[in-house]
């Protein structure tokens, strides 16, 4: 099941692990990405912590942790090829995986309809 944040991140739950990326709407707004800096795996993060830096041709942006938890894995493929995020934001262009400090918080995020309403 996909959930969304108001900061244009998507979250996909697979057991205890949550995969995080940015939405197609976000990639359209940002334009072509040319640089991605990911966090270390196995670090504890708090909601709103700036964990990822992305840069498009025009500008730098921060991606924040959507919820409290621990980063378990990062997608080095997008560091080598930032364009993957533009080409396939929901699959190959994922940013990191994390486990949540409080898994119930996942359910409080925006569902797809609520996110669509936000960006339309």
């Amino acid at each position, binding site marked *: 099941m996909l959930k969304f944040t108001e900061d244009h991140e998507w979250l996909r739950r697979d057991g205890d692990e949550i995969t995080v990326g940015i939405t197609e709407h976000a990639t359209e707004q940002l*334009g072509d990405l*040319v640089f991605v800096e990911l966090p270390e795996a196995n670090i504890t993060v708090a909601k709103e912590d700036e964990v990822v830096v992305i*840069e498009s*041709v*025009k500008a730098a942006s921060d991606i924040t942790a959507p919820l409290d938890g621990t980063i378990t894995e990062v997608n080095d493929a997008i560091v080598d090829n930032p364009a993957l995020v533009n080409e396939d934001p929901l699959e190959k262009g994922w940013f990191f995986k994390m486990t949540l400090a409080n898994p119930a918080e996942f359910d409080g995020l925006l569902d797809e309809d609520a996110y669509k309403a936000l960006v339309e």
Partner: protein
Amino acid sequence: MTTETLERTPLHALHRDLGARLVPFAGYEMPVQFPAGIMKEHLHTREKAGLFDVSHMGQIRLSSRSGAIEDTARALETLVPADILGLAAGRQRYALFTNDAGGIEDDLMIANHGDALFLVVNAARKAADSAHLTATLSDHCKIEVLEDRALLALQGPAAEDALATQIPAVRDMRFMDSRVLPFGDGRALVSRSGYTGEDGFEVSVPADAAEAFARRLFAHPDVEPIGLGARDSLRLEAGLCLHGQDIDASTTPVSAGLNWAIPKIRRSGGARAGGFPGANVVLSETPALRRTGILPDGRAPVRAGTPLHAEPDGPAIGHVTSGGFGPSCGHPVAMGYVPANLATPGTPLLAQVRGKFLTAATAALPFITPTYKR
């Protein structure tokens, strides 16, 4: 600034039709990019031809009350350290409006159209420039801001072929030629120049004919619309200054590395030495800082405002004035100011980005090889 207060160019409706993302720029609502995006637009311009709307820039016609072009040239030379008396009819030159401190109030193009000089100035400076011209030259010259004309830039290796379908005479022009050519019922003011490092043209046409003209150019298979985003990355790779960012009222021509724009005849010992605002500063200074290219080692763009250090525990010794990713270079590129003794290309530097010191080096400009048709 709200959109209600923004001015629109004669191509505004066309931008909308083409799906542009419009942003406020210098008081105008301008396309920052089209659906292709900045990266593709940039590369397309270098490979084929890009059409830019630069109608927000100021177009000024300057003529002398005596009717003699020499009098117009002589008058303008009191404001710019350039050789305007020596500018032949049909030719164009880059110049700088200086202030009394030797700073750069604006950079501009000056063309000799035989009966008058034609000036193209930056959008953000056009009101100040025309006020400056009026305050200083109106006793001897007529200053006409051409509000009823659009300005389009067609840049890239296919620019000549595409523009020649509309104005065949452009094939005979070379770099920095500027001509008044028949165009429909009126006239086009065409220069072979631009702001990308590519061969290309800037074409001034009557505002009411601009959209149809642009649509005819888009009918050429090699021509695509290009926004201000790619215009910025193209000019950065070409090492060209943006006024308000790389040069401004507090930077001098020598510090900015623009002394090539000051010919011998206007320098000390020249036949018409000095005689422009700030000449005593401009002609004698040894500036502490010099503008240089900066090549970051890694993949992280190093942007305007980034402090530059010689060593991590030392003070900032300079700063970046323009920087980003260079799509044709395939890596980040930047320019900025460093102490003159560190401006030699290849000098290592550190750029402080998000608290980290990223390695970089000074580099010769431009980052690409220009393809001007000389």
